[in-house]
């Protein structure tokens, strides 16, 4: 039996149009959710591969690893070799702390410095400079690729020696070149620096907002609070949406500040006024959110909380701030801090009355209040949810909350 093709084409067109309408009516894919899913699948794949490798291979790897570690003679405390778990935060208290890597690269933390080795690759690593000064000596090979991240800055290294100092409160990165060349990139800068030179970069507004002090409420990244237990609504005094102080110039526009610069031969030429104007269009705080996401997906909840708080401080009253609040709620929820999670979701609901995040946050608040035994609050939230989102994903649950309390 032959099928009348035009009819099938008509049906296909009709289905496509209806499908597009359905797509338009549903929220688009959440990049964070996809990234988290990819990270989860990678972890699962790694575990599967590890299981397949078998005990014999594992034993061989451990033996070879131990032998390699001993041959390197770097067994003193605080030294990271390829045979040890290299990823993670490190802090130098009173003494310099050297981190040695298998390719011969050495990163020395000055006293008071904190780093977070986020990723170790076959030909390099990604080291986040959280605070303080590090002395970096990267051994060059054809494939070498190291990244030193400091705030929104990324210092790309292929083989060189330099000191990097990061002041998170002031948002200032200082790079002192000793050998070779690095590339510094950030929201307002992309520049190559060659030895010998010494330069300080800052893309932050003049009125830099203190790190991890988003606004008056919530006051901490881990436990938002207000006198009533819930953050004040938008417009009621100093809310989480309050903008930062603007001093000297437009606080919404990042400005490149070069301080104490000793221009070196490798420093590039200046920029025009037009170029400066175009640069100010770059979204501010997006990189902080990215780094927060990376920290969260890597399981560094503490770092993620600080960075989300920083993102909120950098871009108050924006969609990024709302997203950061939502993810702070998720982190609190994952950590079992039910009250803290509920308060962050309440921040989301106050700062964004519509949209998928507000919808999701409100639904989660019902669950959390119910879990805490706050039946009356849960019921009120359920009623509010059904009015705002009668067919939302939590609508069945909201109805069940109302039914149970009758």
């Amino acid at each position, binding site marked *: 039996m032959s099928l009348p093709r035009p009819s099938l084409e008509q049906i296909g067109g009709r289905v496509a149009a209806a499908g597009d309408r359905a797509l338009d009516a549903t929220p688009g894919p959440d990049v964070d959710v996809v990234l988290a899913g990819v990270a989860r699948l990678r972890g699962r794949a790694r575990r599967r591969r590890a299981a397949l490798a078998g005990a014999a291979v594992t034993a061989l790897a451990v033996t070879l690893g131990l032998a390699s570690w001993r041959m390197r003679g770097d067994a003193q405390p605080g030294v990271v070799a390829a045979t040890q778990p290299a990823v993670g935060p490190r802090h130098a208290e009173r003494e310099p702390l050297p981190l040695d890597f298998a390719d011969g690269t050495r990163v020395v933390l000055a006293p008071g410095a904190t780093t977070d080795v986020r990723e170790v690759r076959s030909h390099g690593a990604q080291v986040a400079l959280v605070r303080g000064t590090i002395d970096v000596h990267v051994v060059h090979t054809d494939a070498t690729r190291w990244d030193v991240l400091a705030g929104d800055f990324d210092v790309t290294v292929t083989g060189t020696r330099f000191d990097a100092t990061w002041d998170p409160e002031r948002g200032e990165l200082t790079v002192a070149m000793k050998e070779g060349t690095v590339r510094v990139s950030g929201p307002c800068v992309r520049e190559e620096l060659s030895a010998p030179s010494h330069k300080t*970069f800052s893309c932050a507004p003049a009125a830099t907002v203190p790190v991890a002090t988003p606004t008056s409420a919530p006051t901490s990244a881990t436990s938002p609070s207000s006198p009533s237990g819930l953050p004040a609504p938008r417009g009621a005094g100093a809310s989480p949406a309050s903008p930062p102080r603007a001093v000297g110039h437009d606080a919404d526009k990042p400005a490149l500040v070069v301080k104490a610069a000793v221009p070196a031969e490798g420093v590039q030429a200046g920029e025009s006024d037009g170029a400066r104007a175009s640069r100010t269009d770059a979204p501010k705080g997006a990189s902080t959110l990215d780094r927060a996401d990376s920290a969260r997906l890597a399981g560094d909840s503490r770092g993620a909380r600080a960075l989300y708080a920083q993102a909120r401080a950098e871009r108050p009253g924006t969609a990024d701030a709302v997203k950061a609040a939502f993810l702070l709620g998720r982190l609190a929820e994952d950590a079992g801090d039910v009250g803290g999670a509920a308060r962050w979701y309440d921040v989301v609901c106050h700062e964004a009355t519509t949209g998928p995040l507000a919808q999701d946050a409100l639904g989660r608040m019902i669950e959390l209040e119910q879990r805490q035994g706050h039946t009356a609050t849960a019921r009120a939230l359920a009623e509010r949810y059904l009015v705002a989102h009668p067919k939302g994903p939590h609508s069945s649950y909201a109805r069940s909350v109302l039914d149970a309390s009758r």
Partner: protein
Amino acid sequence: MQVAPPVVAVERSCADLVRAIADGRPGAERELITRFAGHGRRLLIRTLGPGPDVDDLLQEVFFRVFQRLHKIEPPDALPGYVTTVTLLVSREALKKRRRARWLSFLGGDELASLTEHRGAEAVPEDVRAFYGALGKVSAQAQLLITLRYVEGLRLEEIAVALELSLSTVKRHLARAEADLAALLGDDDVAVAPWLRGALR
């Protein structure tokens, strides 16, 4: 005082994006997902119908894309590669559904889960009916029919996306159409009346 050269926000080319991910550049994977998530999701929904598993499958798509990114040659072929991986994931999902005897989009458990799915209210009845009927033919036939008639791809494009020869696509599509027509011509098979009427 010397200042930095301007930084102008320009979208990276696909080749640059692939290289940036291979180099482990921060934010590069996010950029790829941001760029292709809409396309992938739409393609999954077109081939599978809207359902609660689409978001999970989208994660699977990008996991596989990142896993085999180094195999893309030339790197500018990234969009086509994402399409191919999406269709591969889609085909596996269709086979899984059949194995699980989820023979119809309107079928019991799946429909129940669909009602819990965000945006479920936006799925029109005729779309459900179409995918319900499609669920009764093979996974390959479903893919071919949706790509040809819903997505509106040319036969050459389908061949590239599914990594098949043009003649294989023609042969399989003809068989798929015949299977669907035979199925809908059988009065004992429950399908939406409007669909049967339209195809007769």
